[in-house]
């Protein structure tokens, strides 16, 4: 009787133990799951108690603030993270018990912009801590600024020719039609600016098409030298007018695998620049260098060269070394940007070397 009672108790105890083990394992699993979620988050997560002592932080938070879990745990927030703005957000949350969201700039250890979302942690109805979720929005803000600048640039580029067109039309309507000496000049100016607007819009469309990732390259194997010859043909009269000689030194057997029409556009833009910005009676030389993994094509001109300060920005959209000269020669400020995008689509590189007064060498590579 006694024995059986003991046995029964033992069984009960065992099953309770099993239940406890199960519960613990469930809790452990939940904990692991929570950790796995926290560890894989791209946002930084930091939890602090009501005295702002750090309760936990995930690897992203470690990375953002250049610290370690071991260093941070149980210490006062400001000791570990010398950021007053975030400390203020925490104080606000602990004080008011309400969700706070703010955009903050961090200058140390690196310059970044963060969206900080902070919510209170409640325990039996009272605020007992604060949970911070920190989202790095530096790149988003940078892209926004870039887009804003681009829109501002485009509208300026469109408005300038439009101002001339409108102004000269008004001038003609207001009586200049009878000004025999000037009226034809004015009409020519109007025509030039209409052409310029058209070129600009075409370049913008090209650029937006290349930039949209949907573009599919139609790669083929083709002889580069025959393509270069075709492109040069289009520049014959322009080069002749300026007395510029175009020399190609590409081997006939040189073949590349690329999108022929896109590379044609690259060559057109580069050769156009090499002729346009060349000196009278100058020369353009087109040659190649072979590497085990790539083909490098170089377009060398004998123009005035590019000042060193402009070289890092020369492939930027609307960046011009000499704005007045570029406009005069019908440039849109987008040609090199288009070149860069096309070559990058081919996983190649572009670059320029230049000596002021002597000329420039623009080059691009195509992987073999």
């Amino acid at each position, binding site marked *: 009787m006694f024995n059986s009672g003991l046995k029964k108790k033992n069984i009960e105890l065992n099953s309770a133990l099993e239940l406890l083990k199960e519960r613990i394992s469930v809790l452990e699993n939940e904990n692991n799951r929570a950790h796995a979620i926290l560890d894989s988050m791209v946002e930084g997560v930091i939890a602090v108690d009501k005295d702002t002592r750090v309760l936990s932080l995930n690897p992203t938070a470690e990375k953002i603030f250049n610290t370690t879990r071991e260093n941070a745990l149980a210490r006062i927030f400001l000791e570990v993270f010398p950021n007053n703005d975030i400390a203020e957000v925490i104080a606000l949350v602990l004080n008011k018990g309400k969700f706070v969201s703010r955009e903050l700039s961090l200058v140390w250890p690196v310059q970044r912009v963060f969206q900080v979302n902070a919510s209170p942690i409640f325990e039996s109805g009272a605020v007992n801590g604060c949970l911070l979720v920190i989202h790095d929005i530096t790149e988003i803000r940078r892209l926004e600024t870039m887009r804003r600048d681009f829109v501002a640039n485009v509208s300026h580029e469109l*408005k300038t020719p439009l*101002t001339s067109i*409108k*102004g000269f039309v008004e*001038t003609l309507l*207001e009586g*200049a039609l009878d000004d025999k000496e000037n009226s034809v000049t004015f009409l020519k100016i109007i025509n030039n600016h209409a052409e310029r607007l058209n070129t600009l819009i075409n370049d913008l469309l090209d650029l937006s098409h290349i930039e949209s990732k949907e573009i599919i390259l139609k790669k083929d194997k083709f002889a580069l030298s025959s393509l270069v010859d075709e492109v040069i043909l289009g520049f014959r009269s322009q080069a002749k007018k300026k007395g510029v000689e175009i020399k190609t030194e590409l081997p006939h057997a040189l073949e590349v695998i690329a999108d022929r029409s896109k590379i044609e556009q690259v060559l057109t833009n580069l050769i156009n620049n090499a002729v346009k910005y060349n000196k009278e009676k100058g020369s353009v030389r087109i040659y190649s260098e072979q590497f085990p993994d790539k083909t490098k094509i170089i377009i060398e001109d004998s123009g005035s060269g590019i000042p060193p300060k402009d070289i890092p920005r020369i492939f930027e959209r609307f960046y011009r070394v000499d*704005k*007045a000269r570029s406009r005069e020669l019908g440039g849109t400020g987008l040609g090199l940007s288009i070149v860069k995008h096309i070559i990058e689509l081919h996983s190649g590189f572009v670059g320029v070397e230049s000596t002021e007064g002597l000329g420039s060498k623009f080059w691009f590579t195509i992987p073999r």
Partner: protein
Amino acid sequence: MTTEKRVIIVEDDKDINDLIAYNLRKEGFVVEQVFDGSDARKRLAEEVFNIVILDIMLPGIDGFDICREIKENPKQARTFIVVVSAKCRQQDKLYAHLLGADCYLTKPFSLLILLSAVKEISANLDKEFLVKNA
């Protein structure tokens, strides 16, 4: 026109500069043309102009700086500034006015409006001249 009015056009786009110059000359103004900020600064330091037609986005020194410098120069205290710019945001217009611009036209501007603004300024200058010499 009672007195000869001197106008300086500060505009880097040659065609737009020529456009304004042609029309103002036709109206009898004495016109000088400059194409960048540093030439504008130089000429405005040397001589007094009645009216400045000023672009904002100029190579080198921008139009806002030129505008400020004109207003800081006691010699140019009676110089009227007409801004013509592609910058069309309210804050740019406000900034130009704070710096002392008398008129702000956004590109593409109407030539007739530009001319009537300049003619109105010129008429006011004449009135002032008559009062002063009465």
